[in-house]
């Protein structure tokens, strides 16, 4: 009887001690909550991003998951916007108890959700939004940006323009009238003024977001005859502008710079002429010069094309980067924890300063000082080649992110003002198609 009592006490004690250990065991799944545009004009990015997330999650799970744990996705439509987006995000974190979130595409959404993620202490990867100011004004623990921001994206395009067309005297801008259109022009024009102060800005046009007609803007630019026309527009707006400008000869009259035009190239098809400068919001391009012969890269691109009918565009690669960052953070945390499953806080600790290979471009580092991703930038010029019914990129330059990203602790606009004309002389590797 005494033996039974002792055995029972030992069993209860063991169970009590084992409790916390079991809580640190592997979970059944890693839940990831993703905000993306499933409605509205930005669904041109959100829907391919969702398709990519589903493909990548399936692939991760086929290979045994992250640290042996499968991933499970849930999605929230950013198109709902405002309070509805915040409520849905809270529900996802508090009710569904997701382990990490990828939020968001729009900088407006990021501005709303970043403080919420910080409050809820959930690890959040800003997977596509570009406003530099978010991480420049406050240091966050739980929020990371797994790609670049608007500053290196615009600076790379500007340096490319100055290298390719150093003697231009006048420039006009046609951007969408919302936060990105205004902020990207502020970045570009500040840097332009610092590096080439003699250039005259002859028109600053900000048509309504989603404008169906640019005829008047095109007429005005045809009359003004600027050497260069810049646009950071995207989606249907960019397609319409390029087509209307092409139909009326503006693309032939001025040198056009499509700062984030990579995502429109396939849709524009033959309507996009040769010789336009195109930025890619990162070093993304389905014919990336350093990756195009990589078997895994080609297999992913072809699988995506088979699934969606189009080659991947930059939000697809940005989504892939968020998954790579998550995998890298978990791997690092598991290793640091002696092979045991890490706590949420340990994963967050591991994410800071992580360098991860995406397989789709150069590796990205989550800068430890401000959690800003350091991502290379690819810029090229359109060219017709056999085998494609749209233009591809040629004379591609891949910019080192360390040279073109605002140093930690500085505001982008202040840093850009300190640039000198010599900045353009940086060595940048150039690749032919």
């Amino acid at each position, binding site marked *: 009887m005494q033996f039974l009592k002792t055995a029972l006490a030992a069993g209860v004690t063991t169970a009590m001690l084992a409790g916390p250990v079991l809580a640190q065991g592997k979970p059944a799944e890693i839940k990831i909550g993703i905000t993306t545009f499933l409605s*509205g004009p930005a669904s041109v990015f959100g829907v391919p991003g969702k398709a990519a997330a589903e493909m990548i999650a399936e692939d991760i799970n086929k290979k045994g998951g992250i640290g042996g744990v499968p991933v499970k996705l849930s999605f929230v439509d950013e198109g709902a916007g405002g309070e509805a987006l915040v409520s849905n995000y809270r529900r996802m974190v508090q009710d569904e108890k997701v382990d990490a979130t990828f939020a968001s595409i729009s900088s407006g959404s990021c501005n709303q959700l970043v403080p919420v993620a910080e409050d809820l202490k959930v690890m959040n990867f800003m997977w596509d939004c570009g406003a530099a100011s978010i991480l420049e004004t406050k240091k966050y623990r739980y929020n990371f940006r797994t790609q670049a921001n608007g500053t290196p994206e615009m600076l790379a395009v500007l340096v490319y323009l100055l290298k390719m067309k150093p003697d231009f005297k006048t420039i006009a801008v046609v951007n969408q*009238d919302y936060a990105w259109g205004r902020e990207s022009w502020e970045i570009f024009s500040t840097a332009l003024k610092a590096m080439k102060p003699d250039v005259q800005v002859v028109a600053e*046009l*900000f048509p309504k977001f989603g404008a169906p007609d640019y005829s008047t*803007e095109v007429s005005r630019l045809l009359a003004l005859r600027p050497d260069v026309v810049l646009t950071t527009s995207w989606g249907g707006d960019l*397609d319409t502008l390029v087509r209307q400008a092409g139909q009326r*000869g503006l693309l032939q009259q001025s040198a056009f710079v499509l700062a984030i035009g990579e995502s429109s190239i396939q849709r524009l098809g033959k309507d996009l002429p040769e010789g336009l400068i195109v930025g890619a919001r990162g070093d993304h391009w389905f014919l990336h010069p350093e990756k195009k012969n990589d078997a895994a890269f080609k297999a992913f691109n072809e699988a995506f094309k088979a699934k969606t009918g189009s080659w991947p565009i930059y939000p697809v690669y940005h989504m892939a980067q968020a998954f790579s960052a998550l995998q890298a953070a978990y791997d690092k945390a598991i290793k640091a924890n002696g092979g045991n499953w890490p706590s949420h806080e340990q994963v967050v600790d591991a994410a800071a300063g992580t360098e991860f290979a995406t397989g789709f471009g150069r590796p990205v580092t989550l800068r430890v000082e401000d959690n800003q991703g350091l991502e290379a930038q690819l810029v090229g010029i359109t060219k017709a080649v056999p085998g494609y019914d749209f233009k591809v990129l040629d004379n591609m330059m891949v910019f080192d992110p360390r040279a073109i990203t605002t140093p930690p602790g500085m505001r982008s606009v202040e840093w850009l003002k300190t640039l000198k004309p010599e900045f353009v002389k940086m060595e940048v590797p150039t690749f032919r198609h």
Partner: protein
Amino acid sequence: MNSTLAILAVLDGISYAALVFLVSVGLSLIFGVLRVVNVAHGSFYAFGAYLAATFSLAVAPLSPWLTYPALVAASIVIGVVCGGLIERFLLRPLYGRDDVLQLLITFAAFMIMDNLQRLIWGVQPIFANEPLKLLPNISVFGVNYTSYQVLLLPCVALLTLIGLRYFLRRTLAGAVIMAVTEDREAATAIGIDAKRVYFVTFIIGASFAALGGALALPTTSLVPGMGADMIVLSFAVAATAGLGQIEGTAVTALMIGLARAFIIYTQPEFEVLVPYLLMVLVLLVRPFGLFGATQLRKI
């Protein structure tokens, strides 16, 4: 601004006004006859554009000239099918009830059609510019214009205005519609089938919205949300003109088109404000719109 730029701005303004008129006139006509503020009007515009793209892309390989009848056919199909179904099954049960119900039901129709649009045509921008490419460019002071935009669209808008005026004032069917518009009860008492008039008018109004979308197709990219943008602008035009005023809608569309073009040439940062600024200014002075008249309220 010199005279050369002023002429360019006038051309741009007329071209923009033509499309705005085609969409707004349908909204105004429906309100004038049915007294329904149709929120789903923007969806007819979007559906007209998308169906025109489907038809155009299908017939273009046979002959690019077939894309013109394709635009018209798409407008009629959308007007008859979507307009007819909405009037018959959603609006008709609500006639004589609170106006708010009509507003809510057309808003529901708008939301449903917005989702249907994504379901049918997806979210990627669609473009079909064959009709525009068939017509030559015109050079004005060294600036190229497409004759589709500066000649064809204004001509269609003008013909629509003249045709509508003639139809409403010189034909029996038009007289019947005008009678129902003036006094539904009296018209019914003399044997006019008001329900039928409502049905036909709604289809005509929906067809004009769809025609606006179809004619916009060759110049623009079709994207999710395009209907919502157009309904806001159409309301601004129709309200400024005075709801139900056909000629007023034409004049207001022209005013807004020209003001917008001149603003883009001179103070482009105010472009977005122009239609709404004009609307506020007009409604402050004339609450029933530029061409609207004070009406007696039946109690």
